[in-house]
């Protein structure tokens, strides 16, 4: 009865393909980015005002933008990091949109995914941005170091390169600890420990990994949600790693199509939204088991809980490829879809969970 509602509050069509959207921290503004028909890139900054989204700024670039994040930027400058189809990583100061603050030739091919951590708004530790690309490499960047990445995770020469579709930071609960998760088109999920510079854990979920997200970046890693092709949502419990069994996980079928995204609610880490290839949204709640660990071969092993579907909604006929919860207003979100429209969503009753 007391189900949350998912309502499209504002819907706006644009004249270009949208790939990603992000709320600007500490504001009622969000950016949407994508590709113009001539495959040049565009970023638009909108502000919600009186039930409408008003375009404030627009940035154009010669190459289409695939993804962006504010995660690695300080609140004082709120630089938007974007990855484009040409493998470049840009940092944009939206106050001065004429040219990018920094530009790196990060990858040889399209930057599929990006994540940031360590800005004043999210997590502690150094501000860092991670990018994953079709060229198989995952690179970690520090905006203070202009010329080269601080870490590269890529297959060795001669190894066949997998298309990296998803990256995510996590475990950044102090200034040293930090892990990066990368998901690949063959279903591989690899967890790199940036403190020890080593591969910490890996698994395969059989289908290409479209999105990886830790429930929180700035706590000891707790949960990881991976969404894949073939309508699968996997949740890994990362609290306890067993030497052999690794991390326990559950998987759930949803959307009847590719699950493009999962996004945790910033105000409640047990609630997350998944976005499907058929234009549907699913709101999930993770329920912890009674005991989070059990013993196996004399070693502690994690126990995974279960998922309950809180609500689902169909917004479009096209896949929803971008979704972001507002960090400042619970229940407010923005999503983009391949139908060349973005929607500001309202999800009610989230405070009840």
């Amino acid at each position, binding site marked *: 009865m007391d189900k949350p509602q998912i309502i499209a509050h504002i819907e706006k069509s644009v004249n270009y393909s949208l790939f990603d959207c992000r709320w600007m921290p500490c504001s009622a503004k969000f950016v949407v980015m994508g590709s113009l028909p001539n495959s040049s890139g565009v970023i638009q900054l909108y502000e919600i005002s009186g039930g409408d989204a008003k375009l404030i700024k627009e940035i154009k670039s010669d190459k289409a933008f695939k993804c962006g994040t504010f995660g690695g930027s300080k609140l004082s400058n709120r630089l938007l990091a974007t990855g484009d189809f040409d493998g470049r990583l840009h940092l944009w100061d939206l106050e001065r949109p004429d040219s990018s603050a920094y530009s790196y030739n990060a990858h040889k091919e399209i930057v599929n995914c990006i994540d940031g951590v360590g800005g004043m708004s999210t997590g502690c530790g150094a501000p860092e941005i991670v990018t994953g690309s079709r060229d198989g490499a995952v690179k970690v960047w520090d905006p203070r170091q202009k010329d080269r990445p*601080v870490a590269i995770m890529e297959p060795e020469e001669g190894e066949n390169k997998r298309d990296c579709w998803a990256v995510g930071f996590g475990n950044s609960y102090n200034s040293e600890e930090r892990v990066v998760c990368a998901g690949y088109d063959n279903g591989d999920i690899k967890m790199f420990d940036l403190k020890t510079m080593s591969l910490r854990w890996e698994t395969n979920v059989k289908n290409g990994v479209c999105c990886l997200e830790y429930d929180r970046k700035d706590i000891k890693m707790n949960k990881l949600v991976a969404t894949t092709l073939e309508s699968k949502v996997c949740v890994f419990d990362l609290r306890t790693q067993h030497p052999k069994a690794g991390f326990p996980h559950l998987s759930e079928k949803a959307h009847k199509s590719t699950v493009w995204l999962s996004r945790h609610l910033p105000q409640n880490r047990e609630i997350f939204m998944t976005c499907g290839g058929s234009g549907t949204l699913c709101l999930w709640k993770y329920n912890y088991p009674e005991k989070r660990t059990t013993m196996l071969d004399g070693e502690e092993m994690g126990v995974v809980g279960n998922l309950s579907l809180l609500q689902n909604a169909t917004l479009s006929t096209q896949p929803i490829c971008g979704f972001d919860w507002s960090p400042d207003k619970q229940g407010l979100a923005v999503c983009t879809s391949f139908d060349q429209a973005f929607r500001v969503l309202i999800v009610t009753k989230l405070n009840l969970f």
Partner: protein
Amino acid sequence: MNSSIELQRQIKENAEDLRRFVSDLSSWEEEMKRKDSGAYAGSSKDNVVPPIRNATKKCDNSNSVGVPTSEEPHGVKKRISSNDYAAWEKFDVEKACDEVENSVTTPKAESEEERVIKEKRLRDEANVEKEKGNQFVKKGQWDRAIECYSRAIKCYSRDAIFYCNRALCFLKKKDYRAAETDCTSALSLDSTYVKALHRRGLARKELNQLRDAAEDLYRASELEPNNMAVRSDFNTVLAARISETGDETMRQEVPIDIAINVERKLDPILPATKHRPPSSTFKETKSTAETAWPKVEDTVLIEPVKIPPHKQSKKPLLRIKIQEDCEITAVKTVREHNLPAQSASGTGTNVRPETLKNNLEAKREEDASSSFDNAKKSNKPKIAISKSELNSSMKIEASPLQETEVIPPVPKNSVQFLAAWRQIYKNSKICCQYLKQINGENLPKIFQDSLDGNILSQILNILATEFVDANEPVLSYIQGLTKVRRFRTLTLFLSQSDKESLEILFRHTQKLENTSSDLIVSIRKDYEF
């Protein structure tokens, strides 16, 4: 009915929720706008941000980044699923083992690299100090130079140059003991460091350790035969020794040595190859002067021969049969003739290594026939020994190769020529035959630009004696020589005897080959007559 009422209530509630949310939203918008404008100012106070990852390892960043790089494929390899038989068939266990080993050694290699970098930094620092020290040396500020070199040594203690330079300062300060110690340190790092040897020699001379001084200077002159400073110091030390000790044997040996040195002084471009260092002479001096062996009539003392590796002969050892009078046959290996005194029979003779060598050379120079054959027949040879009336009652059977002086093949380049020439230059007949093989016009091609004055004068001498005696044509040779590169420089060093030889040759060629006087004049011009 109930459900429909419930549904209506639900819808109403939802609408209410939404209305509330939207109104909330508008107030939130206002609030956010206010916050937003303050965001830049409000949060500008920077918290302490951790340093850039791996920034400390900037110098080998690529390396540190490489760690996870290598890590990942390991993971990929490990992940061959159990039912993927094809992959397991291809799985190379040995390679995997190697990889595991390599991955273990990687951090070690990295620390090794770090160590190398650190060492390099220290060495650079030391070199800077050295340069400073050199500047002070130029100004004659010995104390400050010593300070600099000491700091350099503190930074990097394994460079002989620092010790050697400091030794110079000590020498100048007349602190000979310290100079000697420094030189010894330098030599322990680099035993063929001529400057260190020279300076230690000087220091020891001042400390009145004449024997050691002579030894050092001798070794230095051996390593650098053209170093005139070393040579003159060596001579003064020797002279000092003679006047001091007045040892019979020394008096006997030293003048020869000095004579050689004087000769060298006269002709500074004499190549090192011609004059074998007077090792035997010197060694002899040493042995008689220093050894405390009981003087047994029938023994001979063998001194080890120290020759730097680059001067050692590359030729195989010769086998020499030594048969003694008292029917004891001992087969000894003797190094090729330019390494004398390597070995000799242990008992029954009083032949010194030097004389043994002399025997060999005398033998070689003899025409292989007479005395040797006689000796064979009589089985009781008497070998004449120059400048010593020691009577050897040995019979020496050298291998035929050594004995019957094979004429070396026609040389293709100067290296071959010089190698052959070094062996035969003492035997003018062989030289003559050797030269006859060579076409005079080919001389420039053979020598390129490595003909030196000494060889030239030797060739001229052979031409003027052997060729003229045998009535052989010489024109092509004297013409060929003029075509050698840098010949004009060589003519500056022609000695009087060379010029006399040339005169003979000119006359000879005019007579024998009917050379026109014009040509002779032009050749004369080439020889700077």
